[in-house]
């Protein structure tokens, strides 16, 4: 009896139930395709590099997951990243000019500043969305203009360059702990923290409840507005951290840092199975979604396509998002149909 039941579970049910499996399959297929063209791609170093390269995207995507879970969205994250990186960069520069190079601000202090700036930005977003009842897209569209504007005013039109940065800050995305890059370690820490928060903390479970059915959550006694605010603050903190990581990686902060990056982040979430209407999504899925984008970004230049592979990147990314979301819908429909048929019999 049990055996036959086990056998009767079709492949696509597995794929749907464990979206992570299908994503791992997609990543493996992508890696296989690139490796067929260029065997150099399949190496431990390269894989580690891809993870390192995707770390920032994954951190931001996990923040976006929290926002998407409550049925909200944040397209102002590049603005938040630019603002936090700029403020931190200017503090570094002022300090370097004032004292001598060795007495630069400690790294932990800088990171704290960047994350608090992000938290403040997230708080503003959250307050307007949750307590002002303005639609998330409109709010964050407006605040992204505002954050970029403030970045510009703060910077007085000047970018922050490598010479303005402290040694520790430049090294913080470059150093490695026994072969594993700091960025990867930060990513693992953030992912673990958010996973624990979303699964074992009441406030984390409330995010799912608010996104699935806001009225039911309200009646149940959940402070829905506070949950929304919390999600946006988490996003802000992680965006602040992400901004610092980009600043350290590029050793440069400009006023238009990473414009348009929010779309990559949303794409990583959607590929990873998060729903834009709220209540659905897992950290593991989002991580795999980010890794999928990372594999494409790093694999395409190695494909030795006709002409410059850079030109194909956009198209393939777009197609991949489309295929991922559409195939998910089709599989779900098929599963529902099978389910209904089985119940009829």
């Amino acid at each position, binding site marked *: 009896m049990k055996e036959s039941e086990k056998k009767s579970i079709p492949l696509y049910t597995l794929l749907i139930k464990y979206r992570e499996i299908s994503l791992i399959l997609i990543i493996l297929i992508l890696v296989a395709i690139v490796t067929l063209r260029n065997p150099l791609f399949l190496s431990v170093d390269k894989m580690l590099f891809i993870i390192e390269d995707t770390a920032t995207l994954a951190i931001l995507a996990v923040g976006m997951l929290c926002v998407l879970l409550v049925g909200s*969205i944040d397209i102002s994250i590049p603005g938040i990243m630019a603002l936090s990186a700029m403020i931190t960069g200017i503090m570094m520069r002022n300090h370097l000019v004032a004292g001598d190079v060795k007495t630069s601000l400690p790294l932990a202090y800088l990171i704290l500043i960047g994350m608090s700036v992000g938290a403040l930005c997230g708080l503003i977003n959250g307050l*307007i969305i949750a307590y*002002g*009842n*303005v*639609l998330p*897209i*409109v*709010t964050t*569209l*407006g*605040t*992204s*203009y*505002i954050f*970029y*504007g*403030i*970045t*510009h*005013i703060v910077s007085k039109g000047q970018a922050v360059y490598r010479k303005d940065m402290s040694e520790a800050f430049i090294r913080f995305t470059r150093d490695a702990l026994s072969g594993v890059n700091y960025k990867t370690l930060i990513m693992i820490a953030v992912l673990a923290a958010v996973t624990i928060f979303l699964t074992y903390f009441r406030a984390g479970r409330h995010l799912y409840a608010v996104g699935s059915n806001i009225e039911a959550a309200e009646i149940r006694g959940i402070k829905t507005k506070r949950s929304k605010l919390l999600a946006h603050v988490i996003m802000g903190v992680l965006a602040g951290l992400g901004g610092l990581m980009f600043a350290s990686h590029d050793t440069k902060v400009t*006023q238009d840092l990473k*414009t*348009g990056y929010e*779309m990559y982040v*949303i*794409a990583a979430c*959607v590929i990873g199975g998060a*729903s*834009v*209407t709220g209540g659905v999504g897992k950290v593991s899925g989002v991580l795999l979604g980010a890794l999928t984008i990372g594999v494409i970004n790093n694999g395409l230049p190695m494909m030795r396509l006709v*002409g*410059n592979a850079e*030109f*194909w*990147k*956009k*198209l*393939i*990314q*777009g*197609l991949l*998002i*489309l295929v991922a*979301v*559409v195939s998910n*819908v089709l599989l*779900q429909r098929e599963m529902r149909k099978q389910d209904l048929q089985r119940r009829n019999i």
Partner: protein
Amino acid sequence: MEKIKKFFLHWEWILVVLIVATFAFFSNKLGDSYTFVKLLDQTRVYIVDVGFMALGIMLILILGDIDISIGSTAALSVTVMAVAYKSGEGLPFSVSILLALLVGIVCGLFNGVLVTRFKELFPMIITLSTQTIYRGIAYIILKDQSAGGFPTWFSKRLGYGKVFDVIPIMLLCILLMFPIFYFIVHRTAFGRQLFAIGTNINAARYSGVRTDRLKVLIFAGSGLLAAIGGIFLTSRTGSVKYTIATGYEMQAIAVAVLGGASTSGGKGSVIGLLLSLILMTCLKNGLMIAYNDSFILNLSIGVLLIAVVLIPNITNAIRAREELKRRRQASAVQ
């Protein structure tokens, strides 16, 4: 009396007040460099291309959907136009323009079909992916190069020409659209159906509105309008790169929301859209002269966008709370 009161309660009056205030402020501050005639010239930059896209976006917002691929649609259409014309060596220019319009329609149609076929998916996600796809195709076609060499009537007459030396030809083209759109959206059964879909799509379907067909049609129309906006933009810039019209979708959404549309559907006004375009022109041009800084310009637009949407919400909330208090008191008295 009641009627007059209702007439002045329209959203559009806020915009009118804001326009007058902005104009008065800047003409007081900047003097001769900020006059009505100079503003008319600047409408080429601030009204025309965004205006066409905002018209399409507003229709989609009325339906309760969203389309963030229009900037890319515009880019792909003008890319096709430029490549087909090949600065005179390829197809005739009229055919190239038709081709661009066709590309716009096809892009919009593709969005519309996907949105209606996969209702489980949020339109934002679908158009997010098509945004990347359309611009990706434009990137593959054009690579890093820019294409140009358009006929003089297109890049000089249309882009910079003026009627009576005052009114830009481009401005006339878009001003012609507004009466047409006003009639379609606010005075026909078709327009009412759009609002019905945006307010309650199931109710609309059960009362016999062909919701899917209308949605596909509106998305295709929005693609067409995006292509037209892109063509006007090209006539102003004179050349095409694959990055052309980046971020225009957000500008168009901002204009439409400022004009009274809501991203949750069922709201929108053609007059409001026109007024918000005028407001944007007054504000942007004034700030540009005063500060010569696009970031401060965007900052003020962001503040304006949020303030304009937030303030009615807050007043409504306060009003609702007072109403509740009044009722409680009334019931306590009883």
